[in-house]
């Protein structure tokens, strides 16, 4: 099949639109290290590097997958369920704009912009499996999940001819595709893997809250590219989405601090960082369809819903370690449904009216899109982890989990034992292994008293 972009007369490339989309792609890319810091600060120091790597590694794995076949599965011409492989290796994706997506930007620019979305989506899931999943199994999961869940879902919702797109489901920047899918998959993955061994026995305290605040700040910054960039052009719609993004984050942050204050008499820093992310998640599907007042309502309501979910989570025994479901699942569902309530054509003539603008049908379409996303994400994650479990270990061995994932998975430590430990260490040749005499190992392995 010949890509649609090559059949049509070359459209005019706009330098302004291209500049904004490239900048937006770079902003979304920056969200990945932002997410790495957000998550990395919330875990214990002994697994900090592993947690950071779980986010960063996806820029690599998904970046390669996207070029080879991911972009084609998601945005290639094909059936309503999935794209075919005509864009394999980004074949035919070049300087000529694709009129179906960003009609004034070279097609390759759109493909790169979407590559960043694919990378951060699977990285979001890592927050549920930190401190206990094997790194190799996680990389394999990331590759399979992006291929079998993210790419088809992006096709359903965003691709020309995708079945939810045809039905008129509104998802401006990825409320269903990115956040609901990641949140639900995170919950399922946490259940499949089981809780960390120390959960409920010892307190698990964030090791670097400043990291988390820095990460939340970078996410807020990058989210302007995520949402306002999804206008795919530099103009009034991008401005509207930019405003909605900022207003929802501000509303959710304020609401979260007030809820914290009402419950414990203190506004916590971890709570503030969480509130920021929740507001940004909730506005993602709505950013290009709602007024500033609508954005404020979405931010505040989503903050209340996620706050309640986070309070309930410790009572469930499901170790969604960094509350990915409460932040991305609950806020994503809130945002997707509220889009069906608050959307208006006044903001975006290419969008649709919601319930309050006299179109209750839109809310039903949104509900269908949410349901379909939950179903695909949950079953996809169960199947992928089930297959992986049959061929490799998903969890760290117990001693490695006790010592932290940094040493067992990466052979490094985020915070080594200090100068004394380094001075007392001994250099060895690269690749040389250190082994104790067998008798000594047996003695040290024997429990005391034997």
């Amino acid at each position, binding site marked *: 099949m010949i890509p649609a972009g090559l059949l049509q007369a070359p459209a005019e490339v706009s330098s302004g639109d291209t500049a904004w989309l490239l900048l937006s792609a770079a902003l979304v890319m920056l969200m990945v290290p932002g997410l790495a810091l957000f998550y990395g600060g919330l875990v214990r120091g002994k697994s900090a590097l592993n947690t950071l790597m779980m986010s960063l590694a996806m820029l690599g794995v998904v970046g390669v997958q996207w070029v080879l076949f991911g972009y084609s599965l998601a945005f290639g011409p094909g059936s309503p369920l999935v794209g075919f492989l005509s864009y394999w290796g980004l074949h035919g994706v070049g300087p000529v704009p694709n009129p179906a997506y960003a009609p004034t930007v070279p097609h390759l620019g759109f493909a790169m912009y979407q590559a960043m979305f694919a990378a951060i989506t699977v990285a979001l899931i890592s927050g549920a499996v930190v401190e206990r999943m094997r790194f190799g199994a996680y990389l394999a999961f990331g590759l399979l999940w992006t291929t079998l869940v993210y790419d088809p879902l992006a096709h359903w919702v965003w691709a020309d001819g995708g079945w939810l797109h045809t039905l008129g489901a509104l998802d401006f920047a990825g409320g269903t595709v990115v956040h609901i899918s990641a949140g639900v998959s995170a919950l399922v993955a946490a259940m499949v893997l089981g809780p960390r061994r120390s959960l409920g026995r010892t*307190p698990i305290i964030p090791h670097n809250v400043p990291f988390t605040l820095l990460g939340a700040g970078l996410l807020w910054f990058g989210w302007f590219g995520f949402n306002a960039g999804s206008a795919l052009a530099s103009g009034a719609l991008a401005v509207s989405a930019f405003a909605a993004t900022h207003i929802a984050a501000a509303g959710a942050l304020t609401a979260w601090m007030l809820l914290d204050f009402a419950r414990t008499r*203190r506004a916590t820093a971890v709570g503030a960082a969480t509130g920021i992310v929740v507001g940004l998640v909730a506005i993602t599907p709505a950013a290009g369809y709602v007024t500033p007042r609508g954005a404020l309502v979405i931010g505040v309501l989503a903050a209340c819903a996620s706050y309640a979910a986070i*309070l*309930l989570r410790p009572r469930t025994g499901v170790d969604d370690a960094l*509350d990915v479901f409460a932040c991305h699942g609950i806020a994503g569902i809130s945002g997707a449904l509220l889009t069906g309530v608050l959307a208006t054509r006044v903001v975006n003539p290419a969008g649709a009216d919601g319930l309050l603008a006299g179109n209750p049908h839109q809310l039903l379409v949104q509900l269908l899109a949410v349901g379909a996303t939950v179903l695909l994400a949950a079953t996809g994650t169960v199947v992928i982890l089930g297959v992986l479990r049959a061929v490799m270990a998903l969890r760290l061995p117990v001693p490695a989990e006790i010592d932290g994932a940094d040493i067992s998975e990466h052979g490094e430590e985020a915070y080594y034992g200090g100068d004394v430990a380094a001075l007392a260490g001994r250099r060895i040749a690269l690749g040389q292994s250190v082994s104790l005499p067998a008798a000594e190992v047996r003695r040290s392995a024997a429990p005391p008293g034997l």
Partner: protein
Amino acid sequence: MKLITAIIRPDRLTEVKLALFRAGVTGISLSRVSGHGGESEIVQQYRGESVVMEFHEKIRIEMVCSEPFVEPTIQAILSSARTGEVGDGKIFVQAIESVIRIRTGERDNAALTPVTADLVQRLARSESAPPEGA
């Protein structure tokens, strides 16, 4: 010779150090420790979970003194580390059998006084003299 170990509040360290220097005790080691005593416990909130912090950060000061310095050291710590609230800390005094200075091989009392002790004491008394009596 006695080993004097004092557990104090971190925020009193500056005053305690100055008082010890003024008393002529200049050879000290200190370390950060966590301790559990009679203080009320701090509750921290992390998202949906509350954590009770049952240990408080303290500073442990260790010094070995010849007999004439033992009582002045104790008085210096008492006067500088006390706030009157629960959690001011403790002083432990133990006998020491022998002290050897590695650089010279000197033993016991000869090994105890740092060579710069007089200078440190003079500076402490002049530069940061307390306002009282002035």
